[in-house]
């Protein structure tokens, strides 16, 4: 039967066009119109989502324009912030943002990896491990303003005597050179931040460790490695890049975190090497001053700060996302 058909021809099409009743192409009518409208809508909304990021950059740049024109790039290393004399410099805020986030990352990485190990290794029965992972992730759900409230009224009274002890014992080290620290300071902000970014670090590291191929672990065990030798020589190196990107996502969160830091960092524009001195961050100064700022140079300077923060987090996040994609490609 096949031989009777001419070769090199699309048989199904010949069949359909031969019989008008079998026209399967929908090319008119209500359903067709609806479908076209729907397709248009889908592309339109996807375009909206994509352009938000670009529009956001433009809008904030426009708000910042007076300050950008006035101060140029010198804004980044100027230290004055005097609203009365219309003098604005970003350095204290950039310094505070970077240092508090650095403290947070240094504290969070070991704790986050410990939680990830305890919940991904078989130390404990599975339901217990899942509960631990769940409870740690719950920290991410707590609004940051509540963590700030807890920081001021509960955490600072506990940590302040400790900080006083550190400062009286280790005053010869510049990092702790503060007479009688007040509790509201860079170190406190860093610790509070580390609590807030812990869920990100722990959850992603756990996912990374869980997908390390089973063969790697069994091979190490078969060679006589103990659990911790396996962890240090096999699991952690295998998951290294994944954990670096977890730390970077956590860093991105720490840089942009506003409320809790604003409430505990002490809000001082003096740059000080001592971690026990009050400091200030970019999000904190925006939160404190934006609502009451004068239109013009003050709003402009705050928006300029916002732009700096935006670029900073964008760089960290893009690096993290690219790293995750690169790792995913390497694994598959």
């Amino acid at each position, binding site marked *: 039967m096949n031989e009777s058909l001419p070769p090199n021809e699309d048989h199904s099409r010949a069949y359909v066009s031969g019989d008008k009743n079998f026209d399967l192409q929908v090319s008119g009518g209500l359903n067709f119109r609806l479908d076209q409208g729907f397709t248009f*809508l889908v592309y339109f909304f996807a375009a909206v989502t994509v352009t938000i990021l670009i529009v956001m950059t433009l809008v904030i740049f426009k708000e910042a324009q007076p300050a950008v024109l006035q101060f140029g790039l010198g804004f980044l290393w100027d230290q004055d912030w005097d609203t009365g004399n219309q003098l604005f410099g970003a350095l204290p805020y950039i310094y505070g943002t970077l240092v508090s986030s650095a403290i947070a990352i240094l504290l969070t990485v070991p704790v986050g990896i410990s939680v990830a190990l305890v919940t991904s290794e078989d130390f404990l029965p599975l339901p217990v491990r899942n509960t631990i992972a769940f409870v740690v992730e719950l920290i991410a759900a*707590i*609004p940051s303003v509540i963590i700030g409230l807890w920081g001021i009224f509960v955490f600072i009274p506990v940590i302040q005597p400790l900080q006083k002890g550190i400062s009286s014992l280790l005053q010869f080290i510049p990092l702790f050179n503060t007479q009688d620290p007040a509790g509201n300071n860079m170190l406190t902000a860093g610790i509070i931040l580390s609590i807030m970014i812990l869920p990100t670090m722990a959850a992603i590291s756990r996912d990374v460790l869980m997908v390390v191929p089973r063969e790697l672990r069994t091979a190490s065990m078969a060679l006589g490695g103990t659990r911790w030798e396996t962890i240090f020589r096999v699991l952690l190196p295998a998951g290294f890049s994944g954990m670096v990107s977890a730390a970077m996502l956590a860093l991105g969160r720490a840089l942009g975190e506003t*409320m809790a830091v604003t409430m505990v960092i002490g809000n001082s524009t003096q740059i000080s090497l001592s971690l026990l001195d009050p400091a200030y961050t970019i999000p904190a100064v925006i939160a404190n001053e934006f609502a009451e700022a004068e239109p013009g140079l003050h709003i402009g300077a705050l928006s300029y700060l916002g732009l700096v*923060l935006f670029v900073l987090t964008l760089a960290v996040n893009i690096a993290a*996302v690219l790293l995750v994609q690169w790792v995913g490609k390497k694994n598959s």
Partner: protein
Amino acid sequence: MNSGTDESFARELLDPLPPNRLLFSYLMNGLSFILSLLAFLPLGSILWEIISRGSSSLKLEMFYLPLIDNGFANAILGTLLMVSIATLLSVPVGVITGIFLAEFAKNSQINKLVRFLTSILTGVPSIVVGMFAYGVVVLTTKEFSALAGGFALSVIMLPVITLTTEEALKLVPVHQRLASAALGGTKLQTTFRIVVKSAIPGITTGVSLAIARAAGETAPLIFTALFSQNWSDGLISPTASLPVLIFNLYNSPDPKINQLVWTTSIILLSLVLFFSLLSRFLGRKSKLR
């Protein structure tokens, strides 16, 4: 075959670990457990302090009196209002962008680009989103308003909804789509009657996750919705919200106000935890199916 070597092999296998390796194991066990316990302390302490400090002055009248009469009803209403506006704005756009990613641009370069930009949007600091909403809504309407606050929250919710919707739609088996197409279903019919319908639990998970995130946000509301001591006059006027109430009043020297701040924290935390647990519960249920 030398039986002596065999025996020494057997002995070596049965031997306990050398002391240094044993010590290392115990030390690391201890260290990792101590560090993990450390992770629990803050959460336990936060929950305990909020409940113990806030519950004593929780009164029923607080739920219908505004702040000037020592209640927080106007802030509850403001938060619910702004979260509703944000949900109304972000759910259609987010779900449809998710549909775009999973149904229209699957495995293409455009998919990668949109996904990339969406995940970058997730990482934008919330205070920057607030400045964006200020520039778009507050400068246009010349008034701090619930609308501006809702708009800011919707930008925060949008990427969360988009990404979870895509994940949910990807879980729907391809043959269901093919079956629908084979029966003459158009793209629109297949998408809504087959794919979205079976992905509803997953999409709801994403939406409630996004609501949990938005309801607790303070930074984008401080200079978009501002605050108000009394009931708000409408959508285009300053509106109170629970998080901003806490931020504005935590420093108050008045012990009564201070008490109110802790009580407000209970309400805010319950609201956020409710949506967060709801999303987890729905997520688990949709995975089981």
